[in-house]
């Protein structure tokens, strides 16, 4: 694909990644093309407005029944991306194509019908459930909004949902405060699944929960995916959770995707210095590994998204950075089958060190 068409697609990261996955067979359920969301932020009464590029040219596609993860630290734009995927926010440029239709070109009615197929699970099971509604009210609401079934049919479906999500039916008239965090998250999941959606966006679904409860919820999400043939987009900061659930991962840094690939490839052989550092920073629950491994400690904080560094956004913290990184923003290029990285330096460095070993 020529440079020009990449620009037309509206993204610095060109359309190539999605085209490649298309080539592997089947149509993607979700195709994100050159998605951008810029906010104007006023910096004070007399200064000009600044552009905050929360999402800055993101492209990827998700296949039916796949679990795709978007991983990044605070401020990388992952939650803005989640909102765009559900048309809860409108992009500055780019498209989100769900089952062949750009969701931003749909009218209100069509969008509402589409929302039956696209649902979200929120991070915080405490603030995302209405404290004045019983579990039954919460789970009935989606059916009422979309006018599905009679009252008795709805009640029947709610009961089935509750047992599918591991909630005791004796608690159908209880309020959210009567449940523990893990059970509340089950209510949130049941609500998201009420209308048999095809795509579920899960925004940090387990990060507010204790580890033993996390495992329960992760297993539940996995079981439900098989039973209901769901497609998941996981938004997360935690590689270990994502490793357990997702087939492919995209890593975001300051609004851009810096690396994307199959889970094993990306974790086993990271090709972007940021992914490498991020993986190295995660403490592993094994003191033997912890004692032996050398850790890459990044210096400094993530720069403000209002004033991202020129060129590659990561270059001030990057240990491989070269002069060219300060001015040229590298595009995502394929470094292995289905494995894309926006770094011209690290993959090369890895190849030469491997060659040196062989030679």
């Amino acid at each position, binding site marked *: 694909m020529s440079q020009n068409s990449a620009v037309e697609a509206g993204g610095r990261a060109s359309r190539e990644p999605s085209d490649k996955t298309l080539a592997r067979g089947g149509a993607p359920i979700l195709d994100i093309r050159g998605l951008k969301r810029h906010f104007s932020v006023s910096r004070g009464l007399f200064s000009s407005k600044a552009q905050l590029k929360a999402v800055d040219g993101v492209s990827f596609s998700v296949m039916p029944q796949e679990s795709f993860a978007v991983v990044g630290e605070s401020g990388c734009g992952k939650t803005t991306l989640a909102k765009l995927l559900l048309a809860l926010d409108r992009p500055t440029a780019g498209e989100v194509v769900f089952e062949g239709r750009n969701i931003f070109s749909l009218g209100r009615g069509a969008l509402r019908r589409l929302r039956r197929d696209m649902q979200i699970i929120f991070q915080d099971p405490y603030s995302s459930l209405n404290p004045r509604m019983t579990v039954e009210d919460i789970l009935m609401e989606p059916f009422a909004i979309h006018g599905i079934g009679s009252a008795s049919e709805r009640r029947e479906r709610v009961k089935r949902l509750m047992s599918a999500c591991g909630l005791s039916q004796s608690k159908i008239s209880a309020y959210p405060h009567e449940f523990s965090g893990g059970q509340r998250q089950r209510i949130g999941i049941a609500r998201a699944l009420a209308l048999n959606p095809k795509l579920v966006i899960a925004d940090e679904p387990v990060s507010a929960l204790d580890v*033993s409860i996390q495992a329960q919820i992760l297993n539940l999400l996995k079981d439900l995916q098989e039973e209901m043939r769901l497609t998941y987009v996981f938004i997360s900061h935690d590689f270990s959770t994502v490793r357990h659930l997702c087939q492919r991962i995209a890593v975001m840094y300051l609004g851009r995707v810096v690396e994307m690939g199959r889970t094993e490839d990306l974790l086993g052989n990271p090709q972007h210095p940021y992914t490498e550092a991020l993986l190295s920073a995660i403490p592993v629950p094994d003191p033997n590994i912890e004692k032996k491994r050398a850790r890459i400690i990044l210096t400094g904080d993530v720069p403000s998204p209002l004033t991202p560094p020129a060129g590659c956004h990561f270059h001030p913290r990057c240990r491989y950075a070269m002069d060219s990184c300060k001015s040229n923003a590298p595009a995502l290029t394929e470094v292995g089958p289905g494995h894309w990285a926006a770094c011209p330096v690290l993959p090369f460095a890895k190849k030469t060190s491997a060659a040196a070993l062989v030679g």
Partner: protein
Amino acid sequence: MEPVLSVQDLRVGFHTERGFARAVDGISYDLHAGETLAIVGESGSGKSVHALSVLRLLPEPPAEIVSGKILFGGQDLLRLKPAQMRQIRGNRIAMIFQEPMTSLNPVLTIGDQISEAVILHQKLSYAKAMDKAVDLLKKVGIPHPSERVKDYPHQFSGGMRQRAMIAMALSCDPDVLIADEPTTALDVTIQAQILQLMRDIQRESKMGIVLITHNLGVVAEMADEVCVMYAGRQMEGAGVGELFKNPRHPYTRGLLNSVPSLYEKKDRLEAIAGQPPELTLDLQGCPFEPRCPRAMPRCKTERPARFTPAPGHYSFCWTEEEKDQ
């Protein structure tokens, strides 16, 4: 070697509408100089309440320290008068908290907050204390410390605020640092920086650290000794290598198995079914019994006794103790 801090059979509870909640129900440990003891547990395990009791920061009532001893420098902290306790808190024993935004005063500069403890405990003049604050900020890795000392907390990022908290805690060279989930609110790359900083400072100052966390990865990275808590009780404790290699309590094993691994693909996580008990219940037996895959009738009725599967390793579990006999 004499422990620098020794907690003996500490019991703390809260008077609530639903009865007396046993938040900490009999925990004991020794912390030695230069050593990090990790206290691991999930929400409601009593790990934070225990830390607040050591510093006598719990409002009494509704809290009540029922029994136990907290030995520090030859005296029992539970018997000290408030004025004597103030001599120790922030001076000999310092604490850092999980949320650096809410634990810093938003209307005072970072320098004012760091120098406060130095002025109070070391009787330095304001100017000298400010110099010390600059030194401390430099030590914890804040760039341009002499300018940043005049900043307010909102001008610092999350990681920098936690560094400022650490600077404040270190201001009087404490013997013991209690760190309550110091990196939980931070991104992993910043967490790695802060943990590294704590290790470096400890190597230099030989202070003892009580690290309260729910993250087993942080435990593996930082701890020398580990104590596992559940529902207010101590379940198991050992050196970090021994605990991860040879856990001798079903709860510890459950916890280790339920963590998704970065390096191996597990098809299913071994979740622990159910959830922790209400703390207001007066449990006769083991609090983990309802969720324990190996519970015996005795576990419900009799409180497990401490047994020692290996030197320096203790556990409170009837089924495990039986295995050894």
